[in-house]
């Protein structure tokens, strides 16, 4: 089976600085793949290259066997490559239901409909409400996003991504800023996603990574240092060196 997401010698420079150095990453179908690395390793740049926010200087991004390097961000989303953001990117003045209905409408290709009110697109409203309820947000459906607690906003961040029905979901530090008690719940929610959704997780919290991932890639100075099963990464000498001083078990 073709990998869900693959990069071929992906290269990106900022001036003379090489942020992404010939990265060839392969994420298998249905994987729970984690991408780790110290600060400044180039994780965010890599995500931006995968989603099309940045263009690579060389190399290719391949989604389910198709080269998507030339596609714009929204076109990649239409093909199932969807991300969440490390820092929330939400629609502050919309209610939770409005936000997610907007995302569902876009997925269904209704984003250009200009005559019928949003509320009359019943299938989209129902789907958005179901999705939010399944994430435990039923109580706050009609509250403006800005008024919600951070943990709840974090869930809307994920709901917006799920509304696009990803086949490959890139989670950029989903638990960032969420209190430990809530981050456990958050990861339980993520762990319940069906295996038809491939997940690439970028995360700082090693505890979470080792609990969640079945495969780990380590990025250092813009290049892939190692890729293996978690138990082998945990004992990998080079990886330990990079994280020296930073305890591996969190």
């Amino acid at each position, binding site marked *: 089976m073709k990998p869900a997401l693959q990069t071929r010698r992906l290269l990106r420079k900022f001036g003379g600085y090489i942020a992404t150095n010939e990265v060839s990453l392969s994420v298998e179908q249905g994987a729970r793949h984690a991408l780790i690395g110290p600060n400044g390793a180039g994780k965010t740049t890599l995500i931006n290259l995968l*989603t*099309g*926010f940045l263009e690579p200087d060389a190399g290719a991004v391949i989604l389910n066997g198709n080269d998507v390097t030339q596609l*714009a*961000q*929204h076109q990649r*989303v*239409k093909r199932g490559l*969807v*991300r969440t*953001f490390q820092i929330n*990117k*939400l*629609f*502050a*003045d*919309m*209610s939770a*239901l*409005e*936000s997610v*209905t*907007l*995302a569902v*409408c*876009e*997925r269904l290709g*209704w*984003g*250009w*409909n*200009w*005559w*019928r*009110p*949003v*509320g*009359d*697109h*019943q299938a*989209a*409203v*129902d789907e958005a*409400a*179901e999705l939010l*309820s*399944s994430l435990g947000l*039923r109580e706050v*459906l*009609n509250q403006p996003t800005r008024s919600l607690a951070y943990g709840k906003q974090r869930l809307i961040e994920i709901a*917006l*991504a799920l*509304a*696009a029905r990803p086949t490959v979901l890139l989670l950029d530090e989903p638990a960032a800023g969420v209190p430990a008690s809530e981050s456990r719940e958050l990861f339980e929610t993520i762990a319940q996603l069906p295996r038809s959704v491939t997940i690439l997780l970028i995360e700082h919290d090693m505890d979470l990574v080792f609990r969640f991932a079945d495969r780990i890639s380590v990025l250092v100075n813009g290049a892939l240092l190692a890729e293996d099963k978690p138990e082998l990464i945990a004992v990998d000498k080079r990886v330990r060196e990079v994280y020296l001083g930073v305890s591996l078990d969190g």
Partner: protein
Amino acid sequence: MSTQLKPAELDPLRRAADWQRWEYAFWLLPLAAYFIFPKSLSLLSQIAITALFALSLDLILGYAGIVSLGQAAFFGLGAYAAGLMAAHGMGDPTLGLLVAALIAGCGGFISSFLVLRGTDLTRLMVTLGVAMMLYEAANKLTELTGGVDGLQGIEVKPLLGYFNFDLYGKTAYWYSVVVLFALFFLARRIVHSPFGLSLQGIRQNVGRMPAIGAPVHGRLVAVYTLSAAYAGVAGALLTQTTQFVSLDVLAFSRSAELLLMLVLGGAGCLYGALIGTAVFMTAHHFLSNMNPQYWQFWLGALLVLIVLFARDGVIGLLVRLRGWLRKSA
């Protein structure tokens, strides 16, 4: 999965586009104004026309978040288009509106590719620049536009072949109000549609929109074009109801005042555009009558007060007032 969702939980969104009682009441105002101020019909027509112009800015600024200091470019395009047609024997008003909308819309479509590139500051400069270029072009092309003397010889035919434009401005008033209402109705449908919601999404978080699969650039081109067409219709209305086009349809002050009106009323709400225009133009009228030389002082004072104490404009004040009344009730 959760238990069945109740309709009541979805109603706030499902019924968001329903007409409210106060809206019906609001649209009785132009009717009432006709009978209460029969001698001020020309001012009232101007208000209706400018309100339409303000709607055009609200669509791009209030909804999509595109700042513009050059909306007069499209107002002027529409005004000259309708004027030139009427000066060359094609004075049918509705045809004039359509052609004006088309030409201004084309102008909007073409310039959108310049305007939408940058950030807010770039957009301010580019919209300003486009309007200035058109102003000077109209100034220079005296044979076509009459330059500073204005476009002469405009003959507008009876509306729908039947209603003459009378000296009292009755036809002009009803014409302006009906066109305003029709285009308001259309704008209201649009802002409540998925397309309209996506525009708000772009304003509230432009970085998120591509990540939910929305083509931001295409949406902005569409709304910018639409907004230009609206402005063009407003310009055409002014030409047809005054039977004259002067260079100041393209003037910077027209764009700047429009921005003030929208901020005064409350951007991002169609009624904000309407109310802001009415308040601004009424204040303008009375203040300049009281004090022809220094009236702008009071207008300035009003604006400073609005920005200090009512960031979201008159509409924001009204919404808060309703909140207080409900609490105390």
